[in-house]
């Protein structure tokens, strides 16, 4: 998992005797940030999508379908552009 670390989190203050730290990754499907359990296989923090070859969170692993966030972004942006054009034409 070490090679797939995509983020770092640190807590300071409160009840901690010192800073607490954790590595994170960002789900390639929904972009949820997941904390990595040290030395644990990918399945314990989420899963691995073989289609987009990236780490995913547990919820996306359970869905069992590959929907990369980049594709979802394109869909959202295309729909917004379509809605904008329809409004400009006085439709909808």
């Amino acid at each position, binding site marked *: 998992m070490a090679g797939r670390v995509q983020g*770092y989190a640190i807590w*300071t203050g409160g009840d901690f005797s010192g800073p607490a730290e954790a590595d994170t990754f960002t789900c390639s499907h929904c972009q949820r940030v997941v904390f990595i359990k040290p030395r644990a296989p990918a399945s314990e923090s989420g899963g691995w999508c073989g289609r987009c070859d990236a780490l995913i969170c547990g919820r996306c692993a359970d869905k069992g379908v590959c929907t990369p966030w980049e594709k979802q972004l394109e869909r*959202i942006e295309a729909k917004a552009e379509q809605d904008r054009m329809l409004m400009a034409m006085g439709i909808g």
Partner: protein
Amino acid sequence: MARYGTDGTRTASTTLSVLELVADGTTARRMSIYDWIMGSGATPADNAFEWQLRRVTAAGTPAGGSTVNIEPLDSADVAALADATEGRTTDRTIDADSLLSIPLNQRASFRWVAAPGGEIITPATVSLGIVVMTPTSAAVAVSTSLHFSE
């Protein structure tokens, strides 16, 4: 892509956002959020907080709040197109699910930094973006900062 920073402060609310960062209402660009810091500047106390980073999924009918400055980290860069607002009285349409949820003692602070490739990316769609929420909170002053590239 230039990098920018913004921050917001408010009396924490369990239902209203601390900081809203959305694409411009005219010229929308994707944002990559890579750094999030939060804490409380109030008198230290043992209150339970939960901080959440959530998506804005529709423009909605927001109300209230104050526009906050977005500063380029390199002063030679152009001004950001995105809009940031703190202390809304009515939020935009927000996803019920969070991208990152952090339980935190009021005395503590938290920081998340994304490595390249791990950023949270928002669509280039007018008025969509990210909000910082405190669904579990005490009514004390809280602050949060976001760094992003656009």
